C-alpha cells in the first residue's frame, strides 16, 4: 500500500500537506466542471439558434431544475450514508453527468433537451454531498477549511475554463454544437475514470477520527504527515474538537441509518443553529444574474462585457478560496462564513452607491470573496458538528437549505425588481441581509462559544 505515497504532488510546502484524495477530487471536479460548463455556456445558444426555443422557455426550464436538484442533493447525501458507500453514490453522479452529455447529441426539441438537462442536474445533485463527505473524511479536522478551499479552487478553475474551451471550439467551427457535446462527453468520461481509479472507497465513513483508524481504512490519509498536526497552533488550542461538538458516538457496524436518524440531526444544537443561520442568510441573496443587471442598469458596464462579469467573479473566487479556507481553520469557520455574507452586503452597496468600471470591479471582488468565504467553508463548518455516520446527510441538508434559500431570494428579488425601481429593490435586499446578519451571527457565534465551553 505504500505504492501510492509516490504520487503525492510535489508542490510548495503548504500544498504538499493537503491530502492526496482532496487534490484528486479537486482535479475530478475540475475536469467534470470543464465538461459541464462548456455545455452550460453554449446551451442557451443551442436552444435558441439550433432548436428555435425562446430564451424565456429556456430560462423556465433552467429554473425548474434548480428546484429539483435540491431534492436529489438530499437523496445523494442520505444514500451515501445509508449504503455507507459515498464513492459509489458520487461515482453514479459523475456517470450520470457523462450520460447527459451523450443524450444531447440526438436532441431535436424542448422535451429531449429538458430530459438531458434534468439528467445532468440530477448527476450534479447526487454527487455533491458524497464528494464533500470524501473530502471531509480524508482531512484532519483542524484543516477542513483548507481542504475544501483547495477543492473549491480547482472546481472554480474548471467552471472558468469550460466556457473558454467551448467558445474557443465554437469559434473554430461555428454552429457545430455536436462537436462541443462530444468533447464535453469525453471530458466527463475522463473525470469518471480518474474518480474510479484514484479515489479510494470508504466502506465505513463511521471510522473517521485518527484514534479509530485501522490500517485498511487509512488509505485516504496518505500524504498527511503525522507530525504536521501538533505543529499547528489551532489544533493545539483545540485538541479535542472531534469529540466536543455534541455529536453522538458513532455506532459503526450497526443498523443502517434511517430517516429517524436524519430528523435527530436537528437535535444537535450547533448544527441546528448553523442550518438556521445559513437558511436565513441565503434567503437574503439576490442572485448573480440580477446583481449583474444592476451594474448594467447603473451603466457601470455595457452589455458587451456581460459574460466577463462572470469570469471576473470566478477568478476572485478561485484565488481566494484557499486563503479564506485556511483563515477559517485558524479563526473559526462560522466567523468566516458570517463574514462572507458581510462581503455580500458590501457587494450590494457598491453596486448601488458607486459607478463606473472601478465600482463594478470592486463589486465583483466582494462577490467573488463572498463565494470564497461561504461555499467551501459551510461544509467545513458543518462536518465536525455531525455524527460520523450522518455526515453526508447533514452536509446535503445544509447545502440544500442554502440552495433553496437562494432560489427563494432570486424569486422574491425578481418580483421586487419588477414592481419597484432597480435600486430600491437592491436597498430592500441590503436591509434584509443586514437583518439576517443581525439574527444569524449571534446564533452561530453562540454555537462556537458553547463548543469552547464544553471543552
Amino acid at each position, binding site marked *: 500500500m505504500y505504492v501510492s505515497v509516490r504520487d503525492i504532488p510535489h508542490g510548495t510546502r503548504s500544498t504538499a500537506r493537503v491530502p492526496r484524495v482532496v487534490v484528486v477530487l479537486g482535479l475530478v471536479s475540475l475536469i467534470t466542471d470543464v465538461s459541464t460548463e462548456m455545455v452550460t455556456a453554449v446551451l*442557451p445558444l443551442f436552444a435558441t439558434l439550433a432548436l428555435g426555443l425562446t430564451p424565456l422557455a*429556456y*430560462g423556465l426550464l433552467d429554473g425548474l431544475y434548480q428546484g429539483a436538484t435540491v431534492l436529489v442533493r438530499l437523496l445523494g447525501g442520505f444514500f451515501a450514508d445509508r449504503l455507507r458507500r459515498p464513492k459509489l453514490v458520487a461515482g453514479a453522479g459523475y456517470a450520470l453527468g457523462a450520460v447527459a452529455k451523450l443524450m444531447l447529441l440526438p436532441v431535436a*426539441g424542448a422535451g429531449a433537451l429538458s430530459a438531458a438537462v434534468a439528467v445532468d442536474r440530477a448527476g450534479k445533485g447526487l454527487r455533491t454531498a458524497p464528494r464533500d463527505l470524501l473530502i471531509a473524511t480524508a482531512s484532519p479536522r483542524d484543516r477542513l477549511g483548507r481542504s475544501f478551499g483547495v477543492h473549491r479552487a480547482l472546481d472554480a478553475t474548471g467552471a472558468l475554463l469550460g466556457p473558454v474551451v467551448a467558445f474557443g471550439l465554437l469559434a473554430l467551427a461555428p454552429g*457545430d454544437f455536436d462537436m462541443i457535446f462530444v468533447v464535453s462527453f469525453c471530458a466527463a468520461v475522463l473525470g469518471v475514470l480518474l474518480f474510479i481509479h484514484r479515489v479510494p472507497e470508504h466502506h465505513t465513513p463511521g471510522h473517521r477520527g485518527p484514534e479509530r483508524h485501522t490500517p485498511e481504512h487509512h488509505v485516504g490519509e496518505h500524504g498527511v504527515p503525522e507530525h504536521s498536526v501538533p505543529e499547528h497552533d489551532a489544533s493545539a488550542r483545540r485538541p479535542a474538537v472531534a469529540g466536543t461538538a455534541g455529536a453522538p458516538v458513532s455506532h459503526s457496524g450497526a443498523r443502517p441509518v434511517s430517516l429517524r436518524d436524519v430528523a435527530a440531526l436537528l437535535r444537535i444544537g450547533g448544527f441546528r443553529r448553523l442550518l438556521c443561520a445559513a437558511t436565513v442568510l441565503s434567503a437574503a441573496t439576490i442572485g448573480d*444574474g440580477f446583481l449583474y443587471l444592476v451594474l448594467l442598469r447603473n451603466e457601470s458596464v*455595457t452589455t458587451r462585457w*456581460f*459574460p466577463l462579469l462572470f469570469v471576473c467573479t470566478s477568478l476572485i473566487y478561485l484565488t481566494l478560496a484557499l486563503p479564506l479556507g485556511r483563515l477559517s481553520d485558524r479563526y473559526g469557520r462560522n466567523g468566516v462564513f458570517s463574514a462572507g455574507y458581510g462581503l455580500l452586503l458590501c457587494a450590494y452597496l457598491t453596486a448601488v452607491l458607486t459607478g463606473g468600471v472601478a465600482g463594478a470591479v470592486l463589486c465583483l471582488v466582494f462577490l467573488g470573496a463572498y463565494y470564497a468565504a461561504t461555499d467551501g467553508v459551510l461544509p467545513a463548518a458543518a462536518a465536525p458538528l455531525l455524527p460520523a455516520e450522518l455526515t453526508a446527510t447533514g452536509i446535503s441538508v445544509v447545502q440544500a437549505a442554502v440552495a433553496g434559500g437562494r432560489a427563494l431570494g432570486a424569486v422574491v428579488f425578481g418580483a421586487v425588481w419588477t414592481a419597484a425601481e432597480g435600486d430600491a429593490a437592491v436597498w430592500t435586499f441590503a436591509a434584509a441581509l443586514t437583518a439576517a446578519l443581525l439574527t444569524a451571527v449571534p446564533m452561530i457565534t453562540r454555537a462556537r462559544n458553547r463548543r469552547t465551553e464544553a471543552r
Partner: protein
Amino acid sequence: MTRLSQRGIRDGKIMMVITVLVIAVAASCVASSVLRASATGGERGGGSVELPEGRQIVFRSLRPGPAFGHIAVLPAADVRRERVVLPTRCERTAASPTGGLCLRQTRNPIQPFAATLLDDRLRPGEEIPLNGIPSRARISEDGRYYATTAFVTGHSYLSEGFSTETVIGRVGGDPAGDVERFTFLLNGQPNENADRNVWGVTFVPGGERFFATVATQDRRYLVEGDIGRRTLTALRDNVECPSLSPDGLRLAYKKRTGLNSDVWRFHVLNLATGVETPLAETRSVDDQAAWLDDDHVMYAVPKGGAGGRNADVWVVSLRGGAPRLLIPDADSPTVRAPAADRPLR
C-alpha cells in the same frame, strides 16, 4: 501484496488505454469538425454567383451538408427551381432591394456575434458588433435603416434575467441606438418600467417610422416607433413580432390566444379599419412573419422530431385555405425586388 500490486498495474494500464482512446475520440472529432468548417470557409470568395432575375426570396438554406446555414436565393415566381447558395453563413438574414443584413457567429471568442451589411448582390461588407445571440433581423425597403434583435445571455447564471437588445442603425452612418432607451408611451403616459424589452422591428417604407414589440411586466404591446422623435407608442397588447405588408396597409403579427397560455396565432390587422383577422395557420409558430406579396405571409416552422434542428418555410394566404410548404430546409425568409424591377411609386 504482489498479486495486489500486479492487479493494480494491470488496472492502471487498462485505464491508461481507455484514457488515450477517449482523448483520441475528442481530438478526431474536433479535427474533422474544424476541417469541415474550413472547407466551406472562404466567405469572401466566389463573388461571381449569378442571382435569379426578378423578385427574389432570400433565406437561410438549412439543407444538411457543408452549406448548412448559408444565404440562398430563389425566384419568387418559381420556388421549385434549384436554390442559389451564397458563400456567406448566417443565423438570421433579411434583404432589401439595395442590400441585406446577416447576423452571424464570428470566429472571435471575445465578440462571438456580429451583424454584417450585405451589398445589392448580397456580398458581405461592413461589420457591426452584436451583443448577444441573433434573434431578429430586418432592413428597411429603401435600405437606409437596419434593425437587429439579440438575446443578451452569456451564461446560465444569467438565465434568470434574460433580456433582448434591439438596435436600429443607419446604413453607412451612426446607429440610432438601443431602442429600449426610447420613450415608451403607454396610454399616452411615459412608462418607466425597468424590465422593458423591445424586439421584432418592421420598418414603414420611406420614412422614419417602424412597428415593434415592447414587453414589460409579462405583457406584450404592439408599438409604433419613431426614430427621429425616439418614441415607442403602444397601440394594442398581447401581440408580438409585427410585420408590415408591402403596400403598408396591413400588419401581420403573433397574437396570444387563450388565458395565460403561451399559444400564439398569426393574425393580420388592417391598419385603416382596425379589423383583426386570424390566419389559417393553426400551429403556434415562433417567428416574425414576412410578406411574400400583398396576399401571402410566410414564416419558418421547426421540423422537430428526429434529425431536427431544422425548419421549413411555409406560406399562408390571407384569402383562406390551408397553409402549404413553400421552401423545404429553410428559415429567415424575406422578399426583395431588385431596383430595376421595382414598381415606380
